C-alpha cells in the first residue's frame, strides 16, 4: 500500500516530481560521464604502464619520499634525489618469486643521464635491465629495428620517438650499430660510457609513455650510477698477484736487482699470447649477473587482486628495508596526475551534489507543506512515525532511482554523441589522460551501478530533513485545514 500511495503521489504532484527528477538526472549524468572517462583513462593507463615498464608491483628501498621508476615523484626534489640501491636484493627476489601469484619477475637500475647522439644532446632516464627477464616481462615493448639487447652484452636501445626526433633535428637517421655516449656527474666525478645502439623499439600505446627512456645493459647503468659491480664467474687472481698483496709492502721497493720484469729478456711470440688467451684462467668477457639493483619488478598472474597482493607482500617485506608499491606509484607523475584529476573532478561534483541536495530539499519541503492535511489525516487514523517516515522516504527514493536510471540513459546518449563526433586530441597530456588520441568513451557497467547507488543515496539524504518536518505534523492538522 505504501508503494501505491508513494507511486501515485509522484504523479499527483508531477511538477515537483519532474523538477527533482531533472536535478538528480543531471547530477547523475555528470557523475556517470565524468567517472566513466576517468575510469577508462585509469584502466588504459594501468594496462599500458603494466605492459610497458612498471609491471603490477615494484619493490624498492624504503625512502622518505614517494618514488617512481624515474626517481622522486616530487618534481622539486627530483634533481637532488638519487634512487637508493635495494638491500638484500637476492633474498627479496627469491622471496617474491616464491609467491604463486607472481608470473614474471625482473630487476632494474634507474638513473638520469645525458645522452649524446650525433650532434644532439638530451637528458634521459636510463633503465639498466637484465634482458633475459626484462623483455618477457614487458610484452608491450615492440622492436622496430635491430634486435633486443642480449644477456652479457653492452649496448643500448632507443625509442622510435627518440630516433625520429634525432633524424628530424639533424637530418641523419639513427642506425643500429651507431655509438652513443651516456654521461653522468655526481659526487664521485664524471662517468662516461660509450655503448652501441643495438635496437630501436616502441611502446604499445606509446602516447602515454615518455619517449626519453633509454634501455641499457645493467653494467653500463651501474657504472653511470656508481653502483657496485660483481660477477658470479669463478675467476680467481693468479697466485703471484695474491703473493704481492700478502708480501711485506716494503719488499716491493727493495733494490736487490731482483726486478723480474727488468730481467725479462725473452721475447714473447704471437703464438704464445694466443695460447695464453685460449688457456688462461682470466675470462675475456665477464658475466655481470650480479651487483646492485634499484628495483625488482613483478608481473602478476591474471585475476590476482594487486592491492591484496601488495598488502601480503609488504607484510613479508617487513624485516627488510624494502617496500612494495603499486604500478601507479612506479609510473610516476602521469599516472598520479590522472588520480589527482579524478579526485578534483569528484570534489567539484561534490559541490554540485550539495547544491543539488539543497534545491531538492526545498522542493520536498514544499511538497510536505502542501500535504499537511493528508499527513495529519494519516496520523489521525493511526499512522505511526515509522509509517510516515517510510512513506516519504519511499516516495523520494523512487524518484531518485528513476532519475538515476534516466541520468545514466542521458549519460549514455551524450557518450554516443561525443563518440560519434570523432574528436581527435592533439595535446599529448590530454590524450594521455584519455588513453586515446581520439575522444572515445566506453560505457561502464560498474559506473552505471555506482551512479544508481549515488542517486538513491542522494534521494535518501535529501529526504532526511523533509521527513523530520513531516513527523512534526500533528494529527490535528487533519481538521485544522478542513
Amino acid at each position, binding site marked *: 500500500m505504501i508503494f*501505491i*500511495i508513494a507511486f501515485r503521489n509522484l504523479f*499527483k504532484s508531477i511538477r515537483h516530481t519532474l523538477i527533482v527528477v531533472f536535478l538528480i538526472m543531471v547530477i547523475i549524468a555528470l557523475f556517470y560521464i565524468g567517472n566513466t572517462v576517468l575510469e577508462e583513462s585509469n584502466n588504459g593507463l594501468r594496462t599500458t604502464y603494466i605492459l610497458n615498464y612498471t609491471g603490477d608491483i615494484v619493490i624498492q628501498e624504503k625512502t622518505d619520499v614517494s618514488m617512481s621508476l624515474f626517481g622522486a615523484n616530487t618534481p622539486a626534489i627530483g634533481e637532488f634525489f638519487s634512487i637508493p640501491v635495494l638491500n638484500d636484493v637476492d633474498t627479496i627476489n627469491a622471496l617474491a618469486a616464491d609467491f604463486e601469484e607472481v608470473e614474471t619477475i625482473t630487476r632494474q637500475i634507474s638513473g638520469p643521464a645525458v645522452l649524446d647522439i650525433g650532434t644532439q644532446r638530451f637528458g634521459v632516464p636510463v633503465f639498466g635491465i637484465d634482458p633475459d627477464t626484462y623483455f618477457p616481462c614487458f610484452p608491450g615493448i615492440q622492436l622496430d629495428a635491430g634486435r633486443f639487447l642480449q644477456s652479457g652484452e653492452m649496448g643500448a636501445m632507443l625509442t622510435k620517438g627518440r630516433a625520429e626526433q634525432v633524424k628530424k633535428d639533424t637530418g641523419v637517421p639513427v642506425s643500429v650499430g651507431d655509438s652513443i655516449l651516456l654521461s653522468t656527474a655526481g659526487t664521485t666525478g664524471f662517468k662516461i660510457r660509450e655503448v652501441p645502439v643495438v635496437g630501436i623499439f616502441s611502446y604499445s600505446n606509446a602516447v602515454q609513455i615518455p619517449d626519453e627512456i633509454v634501455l641499457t645493459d645493467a653494467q653500463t647503468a651501474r657504472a653511470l650510477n656508481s653502483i657496485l659491480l660483481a660477477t658470479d664467474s669463478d675467476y680467481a687472481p693468479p697466485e703471484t698477484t695474491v703473493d704481492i698483496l700478502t708480501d711485506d709492502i716494503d719488499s716491493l721497493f727493495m733494490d736487490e736487482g731482483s726486478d723480474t720484469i727488468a730481467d725479462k729478456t725473452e721475447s714473447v711470440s704471437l703464438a704464445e699470447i694466443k695460447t695464453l688467451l685460449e688457456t688462461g684462467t682470466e675470462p675475456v668477457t665477464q658475466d655481470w649477473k650480479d651487483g646492485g639493483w634499484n628495483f625488482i619488478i613483478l608481473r602478476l598472474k591474471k585475476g590476482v587482486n594487486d592491492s591484496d597482493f601488495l598488502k601480503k607482500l609488504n607484510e613479508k617485506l617487513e624485516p627488510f628495508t624494502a617496500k612494495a608499491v603499486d604500478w601507479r606509484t612506479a609510473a610516476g607523475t602521469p599516472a598520479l596526475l590522472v588520480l589527482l584529476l579524478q579526485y578534483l573532478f569528484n570534489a567539484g561534483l561534490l559541490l554540485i551534489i550539495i547544491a543539488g541536495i539543497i534545491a531538492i530539499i526545498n522542493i520536498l519541503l514544499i511538497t510536505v507543506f502542501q500535504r499537511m492535511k493528508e499527513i495529519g*489525516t494519516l496520523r489521525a487514523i*493511526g499512522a*505511526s512515525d515509522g509509517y510516515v517516515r517510510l512513506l516519504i522516504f519511499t516516495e523520494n527514493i523512487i524518484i531518485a532511482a528513476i532519475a538515476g536510471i534516466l541520468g545514466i540513459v542521458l549519460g549514455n546518449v551524450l557518450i554516443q554523441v561525443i563518440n560519434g563526433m570523432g574528436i581527435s586530441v592533439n595535446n599529448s597530456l590530454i590524450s594521455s589522460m584519455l588513453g586515446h588520441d581520439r575522444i572515445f568513451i566506453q560505457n561502464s557497467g560498474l559506473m552505471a551501478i555506482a551512479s544508481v547507488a549515488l542517486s538513491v543515496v542522494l534521494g535518501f539524504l535529501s529526504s532526511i530533513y523533509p521527513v523530520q518536518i513531516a513527523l512534526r505534523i500533528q*494529527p*490535528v492538522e487533519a*481538521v485544522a485545514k*478542513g
Partner: protein
Amino acid sequence: MSIIQLDTIIKTYHMGKVEVPALRGISLTLVKGDFVAIAGPSGSGKTTILNIIGLIDKPTSGSIVIADKNVTNMKKAGLTRMRQKELGFIFQSFNLISVLNVFENVELPLIIGKAEQTKAERRDWVNYLIEEVGLADRKKHKPAELSGGQQQRVAIARALSTKPQIVIADEPTANLDSATGETILNLMKKINKEQNTTFVFSTHDPVIHELADHVIFLKDGNIVRERKQAKEVKK
C-alpha cells in the same frame, strides 16, 4: 458502562500573546453504544472537545479516560495505538486520500494498524463495509469521482474498518445538503444500533441533533445543557 470520561477539561489556545479559552472545565461521561451529538454555535468548543476525545489534540489541563485507559499523560506511540485500535474518525471535509480508490481508502487503517487478518479476511471485511454504506458499485472510484455524500460514506466505512469502540465525527453533514446529511446520520445510527459502536458527532444544525439519543449543548466552552433519550443499550 462508561467508555469516555472527561474530568474538568480546560483547553486554552495561544494566539501570540493573547490566550483564547476554548474549553473552560468540561466534565462528562459517555456510555458504550451512545449516539451523542455535541451541539452549539460556532466557536462554542465543539471541534475542540471532539479533537480531545479523539486524541488528536491535548487538553491544557484535566484528565481523560477512554476505553478504561487513562490517556491523560500517554506518550505519542501509545496515543497512536489508541487511535489505531479504539477510535475511528469522520471529518467534515471527508479527508480521503485522493490517490487511493474507495476500496483502498477503507482498507488503509487496517494496513497502517497491521491488523491480524489474512489478506482474504481483510478483503471480505472491506467489501462488507463498502456494501453497508451502499457503494459496492463505486469500489474502484477515486474520491474526486464521487459526490460529497458518497465521499462521506467512504469516510464512515474507513472509520469503521478497524472495528473501533468509538467513532468521532466532526460536523459530518456540514458539507452536505440536508437530505444527504440526514441519510448519513441515519447510516451512522444504523451502524450504532447494529454494532453497538459509540458515535460522538458535532453539529450546529438543530434538525440533525434531534436524531441523536444524547445531546450535549455547548456555549463559550461550557456545557450549558444535556439531553438524554431513553434508549436500549446492547451490552
